[in-house]
């Protein structure tokens, strides 16, 4: 880095996704030829992975962000809030909460796609610096950042790609030099795919495809299969239907989101 004339601050802002499209493209172009900057970026990515493995969001959230006074202490009278009554109060609260939880689960505004095996994907998007819940009824525009969130009941591999109206296929992988397009999915709920999709100004919609598989998928194989499907169908909804039925590898499962664009 020391001998490189590039702007290290810009590479760090590229790493966190703060640069606009033109600046990001300039950094990407520079990274293609500058080994020291590319290594620096890879180190940032490696450190982020190590950090998040040691300090996942849940640890921060549990320790700090979610600290609050239990509401029974706050609202119930001290006489009622005796330790001996706590289990009784908890039981009453659980009973009272069941219909509320059911309502939230079935009427949530976040669009989700459930597929066989229990995995689930949903998304949030960032527009003008503000994050919002993703909804398939939303009309998206160039520059919107889509963050895919998924539930994975087991340790799978997940690949993320998108197809636009012109049939262009884009893969989203933290390591651009990787020959596979899959990353370990991890196991649990509300997991974030490492990286996000920034919508470009191409017209029509954007079909986002997440493929869960037992082993990593080769980018070239997936691209070939998706291209063949895209050539056979003219509309993204037809491509979506065909991809949903397609098996990328034995036991693989596919979830899709068809996003409308301005």
């Amino acid at each position: 880095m020391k001998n490189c004339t590039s702007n290290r601050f810009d590479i760090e802002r590229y790493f966190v996704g703060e640069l606009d499209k033109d600046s990001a493209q300039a950094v990407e172009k520079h990274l293609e030829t500058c080994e020291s900057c590319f290594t620096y970026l890879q180190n940032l990515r490696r450190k982020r992975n190590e950090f998040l493995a040691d300090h996942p969001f849940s640890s921060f959230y549990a320790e700090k962000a979610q600290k609050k006074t239990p509401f029974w202490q706050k609202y119930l009278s001290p006489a009622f809030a005796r330790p001996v009554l706590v289990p009784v109060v908890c039981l009453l609260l659980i009973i009272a909460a069941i219909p509320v939880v059911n309502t939230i689960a079935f009427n949530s505004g976040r669009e989700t796609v459930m597929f066989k095996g229990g995995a689930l994907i949903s998304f949030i998007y960032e527009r003008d610096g503000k994050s919002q819940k993703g909804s398939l009824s939303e009309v998206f525009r160039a520059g919107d950042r889509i963050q895919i969130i998924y539930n994975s009941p087991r340790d799978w591999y997940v690949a993320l790609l998108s197809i636009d109206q012109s049939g262009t296929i884009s893969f989203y992988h933290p390591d651009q030099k990787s020959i596979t397009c899959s990353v370990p999915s991890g196991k649990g709920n509300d997991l974030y795919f490492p990286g996000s999709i920034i919508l470009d100004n191409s017209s029509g919609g954007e079909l986002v495809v997440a493929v869960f598989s037992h082993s990593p998928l080769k980018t070239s194989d997936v691209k070939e299969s998706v291209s063949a499907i895209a050539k056979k169908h003219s509309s993204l909804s037809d491509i979506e239907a065909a991809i949903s039925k397609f098996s990328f590898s034995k036991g693989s499962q596919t979830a899709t989101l068809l996003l409308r664009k301005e």
Partner: protein
Amino acid sequence: MKALSKENELEIRSLYERYASLVHSRCRMLLKSEDEAWDATQEVFMKLISALPKINKKESIYSWLLSTSTNHCFSLLRKKKHLEFDEEYHTESRGLPQEKWMALKEIVHHFLSPWDSKIREVVIYTYFDGYRQEEIAKITGMGESTIRRHLTRFKRKCAESGLSMGDLL
């Protein structure tokens, strides 16, 4: 602090996963302690959560975090009575012999602490982070001539005190 709504939680989670590793690296660099760096990272993120509605949408969150984490770490360093020299960490990880570490400690505690926070930031970005002046201008919003003036004052003060940052860092 109020409990976060699901929507806010998702937003904070997104910010955490994008920025927290950089904040943590910075805190570890300044505090030289893994545990303290993790505590500081959490504190800085709590500050971010509180400040988020006030941060201008056009402002870089990364610049805000750089500045806030630097000032937060300095505030912690000022409160500490002394810094411990951890031989294993400082000689093997940083390659600093004890005498240089002691001199660095002197700079951080007794030399940098009384300075204006803006000058301190410029010094830290220059000597600890290795940012160039044009980059510091982007981060802090200061003009490059102001940055040069701060550094010149700092170097002059170093020279008067017989300290050489170049030898130390």
